[in-house]
């Protein structure tokens, strides 16, 4: 996955992501694609969660999955989740759950709860940073005011790092793929450097949802695992999602 929160010169915030999924889950030789990635595309849906006929939050989901990986709470915050691989991974959390230790939250349920119940950007940030989890994760959060954007790097028990937007110091975007920002990405899976290069070329003056879509359309940021691209703006809870294809030649991940 690749998630981006960016702030333009007027202080407007944009949040977008490529949802990549299906690595090693069967390679379709005939179509030159990952089997599960291809099969997931027909079940991608946009959901409008309503109470009393009013939108509480919107999300981009797989049908049948009740957790959230991308969502927007109108006029409050936007949220995406990227997978974080670790030896201290979710299987330990599941094992503990089976043994009766159930004080951690399943990742999808936490993001769903935050989108449903958090009352502000700061409230969402606190919940995502402090709640005990069953698996490590990256939470990418955007707000509605200048400077409200961050990447929260989570272990199962703690926030290891919170990387905030800071336009005064030149940090007008935060970007997360699937690697800790203080470490180099895997040599065979470096989507971070090309994405940052393209964002830097775009410049803060020109950043917008269309130009972020350009970044997310550049290989290898766009790759064979990319199921869809979601673009979000916090104002009015605007969200748009497009299914993606990566024609050959294209990176398998």
């Amino acid at each position, binding site marked *: 996955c690749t998630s981006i929160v960016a702030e333009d010169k007027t202080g407007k915030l944009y949040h977008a992501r490529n949802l990549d999924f299906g690595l090693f*889950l*069967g390679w379709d030789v005939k179509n030159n694609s990952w089997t*599960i990635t291809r*099969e997931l595309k*027909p*079940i*991608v*849906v*946009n*959901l*409008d*969660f*309503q109470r*009393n006929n009013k939108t509480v939050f919107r999300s981009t989901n797989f*049908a*049948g*999955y*009740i*957790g959230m990986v991308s969502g927007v709470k109108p006029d409050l915050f936007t949220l995406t989740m990227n997978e*974080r*691989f*670790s*030896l201290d*991974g*979710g*299987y330990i*959390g599941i094992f503990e*759950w*089976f043994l009766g230790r*159930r004080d951690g939250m*399943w*990742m*999808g*349920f936490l993001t*769903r709860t935050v989108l449903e119940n958090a009352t502000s950007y700061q409230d969402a940030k606190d919940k995502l940073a402090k709640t005990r989890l*069953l*698996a*490590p*994760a990256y939470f990418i959060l955007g707000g509605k005011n200048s400077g409200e954007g961050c990447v929260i790097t989570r272990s199962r028990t703690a926030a290891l790092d919170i990387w905030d937007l800071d336009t005064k110091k030149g940090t007008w975007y935060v970007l997360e793929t699937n690697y800790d920002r203080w470490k180099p990405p895997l040599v065979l899976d*470096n989507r971070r450097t*090309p994405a940052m290069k*393209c964002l830097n*070329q*775009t410049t803060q003056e020109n950043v917008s*949802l*269309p*130009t972020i*879509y*350009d*970044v997310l*359309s*550049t*290989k290898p940021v*766009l790759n064979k695992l990319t199921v869809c691209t979601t673009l979000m703006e916090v104002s009015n809870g605007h969200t748009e*999602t*497009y*299914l*993606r294809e990566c*024609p050959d*030649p294209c990176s398998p991940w």
Partner: protein
Amino acid sequence: IVWAPDPYGEECRSKTYPPSGPTFKGNVPTYVINLDLPPSKRWDNLMHDKKTELKTVVQNIKDIVNTFFPSGKVVDIVDNKIAHLTATLPYPFNEELQGIANSSGIPLGEIVIFNIFYEIFTV
């Protein structure tokens, strides 16, 4: 150290929006999830439309698992044992999962596994 260039990399794209052309596969439908409904009923409309496609995904995952465990025991455990995990999940998620299983006709254990896929695959 000199790194070899990424064989799949390309120059930064521009003017790809609005989406079209070979990297655009289609739009995505929108559904309303009514939180005023009982949890077991919230996903009925969506499942009515997408159960066939979801069954295809779940069947593909089972096929992959059966490739590695040809005895079929793992899938059998998922279908018959994992469903009990639902009772330990917090409200309203437990009831929503039961509702999805009922309306899609997919075994509850398989719906649970689909929903905890993230935790399983983070190693």
